């Protein structure tokens, strides 16, 4: 049973590697959103530090929204998705493998890029570990929840705006705890509480979201 998980994970990582141009685009998007922001607010360091948690997390949400649209779309179009559904292996496990590969190829990149960006915004260096931890715990949940939304809108060719309406309300808890942890860290307060809650959300997501994704994929194929 686990062999199918590894097979799908390996396949998607291989695909991500072969199409690494797309990854670079997502990363550039993430960097650009953050880099353009000071041009709108002015370069006042205090303002930038104050808004940096919101800014980083909004950039992550938007980048997730953009990249998630391609999560199942190629498989849907070339017929591979039918083979997932027909597989005797549990569809939820296949879905989990797809999300895991997606996160390794995009979420993890954001986590890696975040220290540089927050330092650009003038965030004190002592907050960086907590910021990375919050992204590390929060972005997989975004992938899991977002995958439910993309799976539901799979039969619609241009679902971008609809997708945002479906998944952004569900992103509220991650946004709150993620940005909350960041803010606490910047202020030098303990951020463990928020990080634990992010971890709890992730645990809930890993255990329940794949089932919902599987159901959504079946509905979209009908």
């Amino acid at each position, binding site marked *: 049973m686990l062999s199918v998980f590894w097979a799908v994970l390996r396949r998607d990582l291989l695909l991500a590697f072969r199409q690494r141009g797309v990854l670079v685009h997502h990363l550039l998007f993430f960097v650009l959103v953050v880099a353009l922001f000071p041009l709108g607010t002015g370069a006042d360091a205090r303002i930038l530090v104050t808004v940096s948690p919101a800014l980083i997390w909004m950039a992550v949400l938007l980048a997730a929204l953009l990249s998630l649209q391609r999560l199942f779309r190629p498989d849907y179009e070339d017929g591979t998705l039918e083979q997932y559904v027909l597989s005797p292996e549990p569809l939820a496990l296949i879905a989990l493998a797809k999300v895991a590969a997606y996160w390794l190829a995009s979420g993890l990149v954001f986590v890696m890029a975040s220290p540089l960006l927050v330092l650009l915004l003038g965030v004190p260096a002592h907050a960086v570990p907590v910021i990375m931890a919050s992204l590390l715990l929060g972005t997989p949940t975004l992938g899991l929840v977002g995958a439910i939304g993309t799976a539901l809108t799979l*039969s619609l060719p241009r679902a971008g705006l609809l997708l945002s309406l479906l998944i952004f309300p569900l992103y509220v808890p991650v946004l709150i705890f993620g940005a909350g942890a960041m803010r606490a860290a910047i202020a030098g307060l303990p951020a463990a509480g928020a990080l634990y809650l992010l971890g709890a959300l992730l645990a809930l997501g890993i255990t329940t979201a794949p089932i919902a994704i599987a159901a959504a994929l079946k509905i*979209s194929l009908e």
Partner: protein
Amino acid sequence: MLWLHRFGSLPYFYRISRPIALALAVPGVLLAAYGVYGGLVEAPVDYQQGDAFRILYIHVPSAWLSLFGYTSMAVAGFVALVWRLKLAEIFLVAAAPVGASFTFLALVTGSIWGKPMWGTWWVWDARLTSELILLFLYLGVIALHNAIESPRTAARACSLLALVGVINVPIIHYSVEWWNTLHQGPTVTRFGRPAMEMDMLVPLLCAALGFTLIFGWLTLWGMRAQLLWRERRSRWVKRLFSDG
């Protein structure tokens, strides 16, 4: 079970839903009217809030129905997904706009109430914010239903979305509350809740019950329309309209 099967039959449902809807509408409107009148006119002025509290007679029932509506949609969604019961799908689709309307009403009355209390129309108060996100959850269901062409697929997709949403409602509410207490500080004073006077409580309960009946009535009416549309090619609907 036989009863359930009979109720699941669509022509039967169409026939009996009309008297049921009327049976909900009449007491619903009467109770709501009594409750709102009692609240707006009869109830004594509150010593803390003055007359502003009177809008709660609309706000509280609406807020209750926004939650009740979404929960009932999720229950219907579960039934629709597991047992493929068509009526449950239709209920979910019909309840969404009604629930969204009550949520909107709760938001509007909430902010009107907030104007004299807080001095502005909108405050990022925990309950108002949760209510706003709940409205987005409703709108998501409605938008998804409109976007998918096949009614069957649309209803099943909405069922799943409502289920996912309902799991998230308490999480969202809790997280918003957490966020609010952390960053807002105690600017929003919760009014101490002394035991409500009977002559204030009774109209409120009547209004809540009346609004709930009205919710049922409107949803049933929406279900009838939805049912006719989805079954428009079936024999029983055609016969229904060729007779008249």
